[in-house]
């Protein structure tokens, strides 16, 4: 039962891949992988302030996803878990003032780790903009994307040191 294997996160090596053709194998492997599918930063009204997709989606699909994720997280009680199941995946979200940071990950992935990840990203933004507020993110959206690109790449964590990222950003700013 392939699906069960995938959901139990058994490595591909234990699957009998010979019965599938190459496309199917690739598809299976892509399902097997655990990485961030997309990152959303939305305000309470549902306006998207940042949307980064690590999987190819149609534009219309992206808008739908953004709408749905907002609907899912916006009315949740603060005492509830920071995890909501979203289609076949899972959204890990955290609210900071009026902003929701949401990560979509595999259903079997380590939720707590991604929660920590969101917090680190917020700390970096806070440090970079010194006391970040929504307006900073609106007017400097391109910088937010650049910071994110130094933090996460290909849906994976690239750097865990806040200082390293801030330093890298100031190096890059000098080149402008």
């Amino acid at each position, binding site marked *: 039962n392939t699906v069960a294997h995938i959901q139990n996160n058994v*490595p591909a090596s234990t699957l009998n891949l010979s019965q599938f053709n190459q496309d199917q194998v690739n598809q299976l492997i892509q399902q097997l992988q655990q990485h961030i599918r997309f990152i959303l930063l939305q305000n309470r009204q549902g306006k998207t302030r940042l949307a980064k997709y690590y999987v190819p989606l149609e534009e219309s699909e992206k808008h739908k996803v953004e709408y749905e994720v907002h609907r899912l997280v916006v009315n949740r009680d603060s005492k509830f*878990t920071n995890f909501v199941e979203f289609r076949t995946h899972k959204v890990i979200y955290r609210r900071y003032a009026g902003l929701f940071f949401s990560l979509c990950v595999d259903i079997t992935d380590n939720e707590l*780790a991604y929660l*920590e990840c969101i917090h*680190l990203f917020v700390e970096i933004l806070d440090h970079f903009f010194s006391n970040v507020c929504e307006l900073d993110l609106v007017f400097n959206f391109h910088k937010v994307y650049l910071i994110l690109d130094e933090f996460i790449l*290909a849906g994976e*964590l690239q750097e865990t040191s806040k200082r390293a990222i801030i330093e890298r950003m100031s190096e890059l700013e000098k080149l*402008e």
Partner: protein
Amino acid sequence: MNSIFSGTRLRDMIRSIRACKTAAEERGVVRKECADIRASINENDPHDRHRNLAKLMFIHMLGYPTHFGQMECLKLIASPGFPEKRIGYLGLMLLLDERQEVLMLVTNSLKQDLNHTNQYVVGLALCALGNICSAEMARDLAPEVERLIQFRDPNIRKKAALCSTRIVRKVPDLAENFINAASSLLKEKHHGVLITGVQLCYELCTINDEALEYFRKKCTEGLIKTLKDITNSAYQPEYDVAGITDPFLHIRLLKLLRVLGHGDADASDLMTDILAQVATKTESNKNAGNAVLYECVETIMAIEDTSSLRVLAINILGRFLSNRDNNIRYVALNMLMKAIAFDDQAVQRHRVTILECVKDPDASIRKRALELVSLLVNENNVKQLTKELIDYLEISDEDFKEDLSAKICSIVEKFSLEKIWYIDQMLKVLSEAGKFVKDDVWHALIVVISNASELHGYTVRALYKAVLTYSEQETLVRVAIWCIGEYGDLLVNNVGMLGIEDPITVTESDAVDVVEDAITRHNSDMTTKAMALVALLKLSSRFPSISERIKDTIVKQKGSLLLEMQQRAIEFNSIVDRHKNIRSSLVERMPVLDEATFNVRRAGSLPASVSTMAKPSVSIPNGVAAAPLVDLLDLGSDDIMAAPSSSGADFLQDLLGVDLGSSSVQSGATPGPKAGADLLMDILSIGTPSPAQNNTSSVDLLSTAGINNNPSNALDTLSSPALPHIATTASAGGMFDLLDGLTPSPSKEATNGPAYPPIVAYESSTLKIEFTFSKSSGNPQETNVQATFINLSPNTFTYFIFQAAVPKFLQLHLDPASSNTLPASGNITQNLRVTNSQHGKKSLVMRMRIGYKVNGKDVLEEGQINNFPRGL
């Protein structure tokens, strides 16, 4: 950066968009901006390019189309300066994705930039590639990326490593090329490079067996040491999170160790100590610590058996489960599902806590807990757990009822200890959450009820009581009216009382009230109404004293806006009115439904049956005579024609709607030299000489609707204006013919051969066939048919051949045609002689095939003729 946007035009635009009070106003501003940007793009001024693109990105984020800016990204990427490239790549990642053709144009620029002398430019290219590369780009650029993994600057190394993970995800065959480079990264001290290196190794291990073996052999010890070092490291402010040094790196390392230890006892053995250390020493009062513990537990459970560690892991989960933080409880539930596999007892101990979680206000926790509970169910606790869940079903949120009821149903079905228990539980679920119950579930319930003959009376009474209270639960109503239709007599006469029942008094009219209520309620759907109509027909025979009232109700449905209902009402009315002598046998109780067949069909493992289901032959998902009637003349099927010389048995099988492929046994039993009336009885499931066939057809009825998600699908297809519709009306006429033929009074058309009107037997855009009839003198069974073939096209048909097939009760003799060439607008004739051995009982039916060549091409036309005049 500021210099790029110094014109503050980007800021101005954002301000003016933010100042908009209405969506319409915003659209206006955006439209104007887009127009300006388009104009500016057309002027092709390189100075405005990056500003335009930045604006476009913002507009894109608001959800407006920006595809016209895609080429600008490519131009910016191709420009020499870093600031331009930077904004170009950013635009590329936002406005394009891997599926766009435009992306292929950028491969060359990417290749150049990956080899650029400025390492910041290399960084940009790696980042873009890592985020959006397609399989094709991955193949083209893999060598560059592999080389960059060894680059001197750590910022490039870590980007190249993650870029490689994307490449091997896209093209797993490339994995081998990265094994060496990846293993070199594991020796890094730089956390960023190390974590990306570990990630790349993990990816390679999941994709490639060779890689897994390689890393297992060469790197397990090194990774364990690295984990030890960071676990025991002194306070490092840069990486410290809540007292733990770099929890992210911890987690990545544990994850990689999990893959290496899984299925390998030696590697698992090596990591036992460090896992025990992490499991016992990690602080668990903050999220970061719990994240590490969580990952550690998962690794412990995945590697080869080290039972002492597993005890540790289960204890951690127990602690998690009693944590006040909902997040922690959530992950505990998640992990306990995996723990069940090797320590069911330990998980069972937490059953009470887990059941509490099913009732949590947080939907995420509820869902997990429900999954877990369903895994915990066994023979010993099923009754208690089901009771708890059903009790909760009564008070749960509406939006949770669907999941909950589905789970309860699957538990109850899986562990149905006794039929009465199963029926009781299902009735409770249907009463509380009937509108959420899937079709296959209530179909299965009907099959079980049908098989539990000793419980028929009990069930129908229980359903009657339930439906009075919960009349808004659609599926409950359906099951109830089905049972009342079948077992209505048991309901009113209190037959088969069980000791546990309180006697109730239900009059015949009370029972009809329930069914009538279902058919008249405006929000009942088509399936329910159709089932109610069938139930009424059955009751009209079961309750002769009030059959006039029932008839009135049926007659009212003649005015239904639903074609199917209208037609059935007319048919049923005719049965009640004119065919009293066969009514009681017609609406006899359904034969016991075959559970095994149903289950196989339900599992969808019979592909053959799926194809038969595609036919619109069965409509009302309730097994009564009316539905097979539709089958009876379902001539719409396109099975292969029998040649005129053949016996016509195939045709008859078609006629009966018997599946040729799978049911030779049944079809062997049905046709043949029996008298036509018997045959018809068979078909109508009256007289019950062949139960096998009855069973299959009734199961079909259930499973058809079961396969379709929408229960009224089958009905919809029937009432759609396409071919199925025609088939239906044709069959309706057919039914009356057949029934009329059955009436004891002989047919009106006597023997002395009145003139039969000619018919148009077939007409297409190119060919028309007319039949004229004459009776042979002396033999009323014999009819002479002259067929006239008229060519409607401007081309000549050559090698014209007409073939026909008839059921067994007919005999067909074909004379040679007047010619085998049919000129344009001309005609040829051919004589046929048909002998009807069931003369006066059955009408003629015929299936035909016409073949010819036109302009050297073979043409084949097929058709059925069921508009023969009566009495031939």
